[in-house]
């Protein structure tokens, strides 16, 4: 189990490198890049923020997009809270590690003790590696010079696509994704930078509303909500 936890930690920690490169390539300083990994520490939100800033979005719309992506962690925390039964004073500390991967490792553990070990080992490994590789990536990007010439501007969208792919389980998810893409690209020339992505988030409630009106024939998703491990 500790090996599993370490494995997850190492594999995902390495993608911090991709973030460091992307962030530096988007024009953020070394300090800003490292501050994001230290204090935000949830990959999809970090990539979204630097992407929005690079596209010229204002800080508020950029932060809003990143925040909406981070909301899913609240639902992970809810499940972890019951399993880990942490003392109240530890919760503000443990909260920073409540992300996709720690949840994916912790939830299947058979005992409370195993869950706590899984959560701690994954959290610690991931936090250390994510921040270290962010630093290395940001330094590497500086050394590379023009990051676009190396194709590194494709790293951000590729990360999003890799996160999105396992979520497209049923028609509901696919329709939502399609509608969000249409809204984002259709509104791109019309709205200020950053706004189209936020408006596209409305695809989610819209599809749920239409599905609710369409009755039960449309599809098959469970009501379990966000599953751990499907985000970054």
């Amino acid at each position, binding site marked *: 189990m500790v090996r599993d936890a370490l494995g997850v930690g190492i594999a995902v920690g390495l*993608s911090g490198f*991709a973030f460091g490169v992307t962030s530096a390539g988007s024009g953020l300083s070394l300090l*800003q890049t490292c501050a994001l990994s230290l*204090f*935000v520490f949830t990959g999809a*939100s970090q*990539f*979204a923020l630097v*992407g929005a*800033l690079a*596209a010229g979005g204002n*800080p*508020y719309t950029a*932060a809003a*997009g990143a*925040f909406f992506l981070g*909301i*899913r*962690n609240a*639902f992970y*925390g*809810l*499940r972890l*809270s019951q399993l880990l039964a942490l003392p109240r004073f530890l*919760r503000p500390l443990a*909260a*920073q590690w*409540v992300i996709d991967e720690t949840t994916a490792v912790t939830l299947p553990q058979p005992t409370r003790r195993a869950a706590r070990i899984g959560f701690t080992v994954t959290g610690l490994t991931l936090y250390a590696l994510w921040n270290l590789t962010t630093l290395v990536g940001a330094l590497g990007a500086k050394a590379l010079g023009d990051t*676009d*010439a190396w*194709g590194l*501007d*494709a*790293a*951000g*969208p*590729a990360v*999003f*696509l*890799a*996160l*999105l*792919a396992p*979520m497209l389980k049923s028609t*509901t998810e696919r329709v939502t994704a399609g*509608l969000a*893409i249409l809204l*984002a*690209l259709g509104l*791109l020339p019309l709205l200020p*930078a950053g706004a*189209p992505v936020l408006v596209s*988030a*409305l*695809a*989610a409630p819209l599809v749920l509303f239409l599905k609710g009106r369409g009755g039960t024939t449309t599809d098959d*998703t469970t009501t*379990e909500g*966000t599953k751990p491990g499907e*985000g970054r």
Partner: protein
Amino acid sequence: MNIWIAIGLTAVGCYLAKLLGLLVPAGVLERPLVQRLAALMPVALLAALTAQQTFADGQQLVLDARAAGLAAAALALVLRAPFLVVVGVAVAVTAVARALF
């Protein structure tokens, strides 16, 4: 300065979201509609972000080397390649396409 504002807001917002789950009593966030919306929201955002960062140049829609890179990444995903390979393929194909055309 603007960048620091964005970083600060994101850090505080994301941390509070994480903490909220650990602190609120079970039941509040367990309503099916809230759960489904929370599950579907990242789908919409990630799809929109992928499209925007692939086809946008400022406020204009463009088709450039990034599209080739993303197509390669999609293929890698279909072939169940690991995360880092998917990103690596996208970067490499984009760089090659940009050098060639």
